């Protein structure tokens, strides 16, 4: 790949701009859509949803709770959980089905911040910086749970920039912007894709929740791959692609099986050869591979 060629240029040429940005647009719509639902109440008095991503009540009936924060309350010694338990169950089952880190790509407001940092670092041609082991986030998650148990309080929530950002947008920011700025600068100058890709315990937790999720991106037409590397260039977790695309996964299959994949679908967008598409994992054996590539048809 020549560095002068814009990533995804081939896909735009082959499929048109809209098809080459389909999932990115859908993802932004989803992110802003969720934010609008939460903010319509405080800003316009339209209360579809009350609360925030830690726990919310939709249309005064559907309780949804972040299972990670509930887990922290258990470890901190609070066993009674009432509706939060039901809400956390619903959320856990949902993300276990659609892919845990789908939360990161389609819901989490911090993704907009870190994507902005990545966009800028690309513009400024900044180096990758510190790239620790991808499993470091699991250790951070472990530390978060440990600190809840040690302190008997939700210790991480005194700092958690992800929860603070979402809560800040809805309930008032205060100095929360400093936390958000810290994440942005960390991603920009210290570690490329460092927060979401290496550290964030929320992402690590949702990744674990979706370890066996059926909804996956599949390199189902990998034989068409022309090694342009565009998918690796746009992927926030590029290590997830190789096993599927090069057939080095244990089963040799084309399904992206890593729990780190955020199902953001950018690889589908930027592939001019339509190698990637969303697929369902466990049905694979029964389904006859469709003849025509489905991805990028624009519907």
């Amino acid at each position, binding site marked *: 790949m020549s560095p002068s060629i814009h990533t995804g240029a081939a896909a735009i040429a082959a499929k048109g701009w809209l098809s080459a940005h389909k999932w990115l647009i859908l993802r932004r719509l989803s992110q802003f859509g969720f934010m609008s639902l939460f903010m319509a109440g405080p800003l316009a008095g339209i209360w579809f949803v*009350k609360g925030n991503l830690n*726990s919310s*009540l939709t249309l005064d009936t559907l309780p949804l709770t972040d299972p990670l924060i509930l887990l922290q309350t258990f470890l901190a*010694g609070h066993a009674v959980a009432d509706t939060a338990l039901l809400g956390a169950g619903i959320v856990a089952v949902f993300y276990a089905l659609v892919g845990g880190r789908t939360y990161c790509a389609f819901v989490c407001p911090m993704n907009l911040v870190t994507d902005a940092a990545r966009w800028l670092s690309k513009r400024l041609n900044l180096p990758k910086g510190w790239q620790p082991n991808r499993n470091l986030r699991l250790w951070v998650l472990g530390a978060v749970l440990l*600190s809840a148990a040690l302190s008997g309080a939700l210790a991480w929530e005194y700092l958690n920039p992800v929860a*603070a950002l979402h809560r800040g947008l809805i309930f008032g920011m205060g100095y929360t912007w400093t936390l958000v700025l810290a994440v942005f600068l960390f991603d920009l100058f210290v570690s490329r894709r460092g927060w979401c890709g290496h550290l964030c315990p929320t992402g690590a937790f949702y990744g674990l929740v979706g370890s066996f999720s059926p909804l996956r991106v599949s390199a189902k037409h990998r034989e068409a791959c022309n090694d342009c590397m565009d998918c690796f260039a746009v992927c926030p977790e590029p290590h997830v692609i190789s096993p599927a695309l090069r057939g080095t996964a244990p089963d040799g299959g084309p399904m992206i099986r890593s729990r780190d994949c955020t199902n953001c679908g950018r690889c589908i967008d930027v592939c001019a050869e339509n190698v990637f598409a969303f697929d369902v994992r466990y049905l694979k054996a029964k389904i006859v591979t469709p003849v025509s590539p489905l991805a990028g048809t624009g519907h």
Partner: protein
Amino acid sequence: MSTINREQAAIPRRRVLSAAAGTACGVGTFALMTTLFAGQARSLPVTALRPPGARPEAEFLSACIRCGLCVRDCPYPTLDLARFGEEVPLGTPYFVARDVPCEMCEDIPCVKACPTGALDPELTNIDDARMGLAVITDQETCLNYQGLRCDVCYRVCPSMGKAITLDRRHNARTQKHAIFIPTVHSDACTGCGKCERACVLEKAAIRVLPRHVVKGQIGDHYRLGWVEKEKKGKALIDGIVDLPDRLPGGAP
């Protein structure tokens, strides 16, 4: 997963071990720092009061998930979530009595909204709420203590005549008037903060503070003779001689 194992197998054991040790140290330090930070940030400023039904502070901080549903269901602008940089633990609900007190809704919507029970659902009668305790913090400025008839704290109290009473004393300055001392009774005060809000002074002379800050405690061994006597229904020791009381000025 097994690809990772294969990769790891290629790395010399020494490097794996030192990396593991480094990670463990980093994670341990992070956990410890977070824990200590939480401990430090746990103390609540005395002006911040928790919503009705809030469990004791330490327990509350293990149970509250910072979702703000109590804030949303509060029909008044009483509750707010603490923002980053404020003294109250980040994201937890509180109110400041002098700004907006609790209006003591009979259906207690904030407690009903709480998804974790950090606000105890057992609280069904708002009069049983114990958000704090009112106390006259400054007798030197309280108008009633000066012999004036302000009485505002007494009048606005939702449990008027129970949580705050006006106790009549002699006014030694004028020698002919009464002083009506506002007296808070901890068995009835909910800590709603309406008295502090309503205090007419520039700075309130009555404040609602966390109960543990205000309440004294008699030593376990201590017995009040007249209480014990009442319990027993007669004198504690038989045949005790009741000597005449000596009054000042040699009065009979």
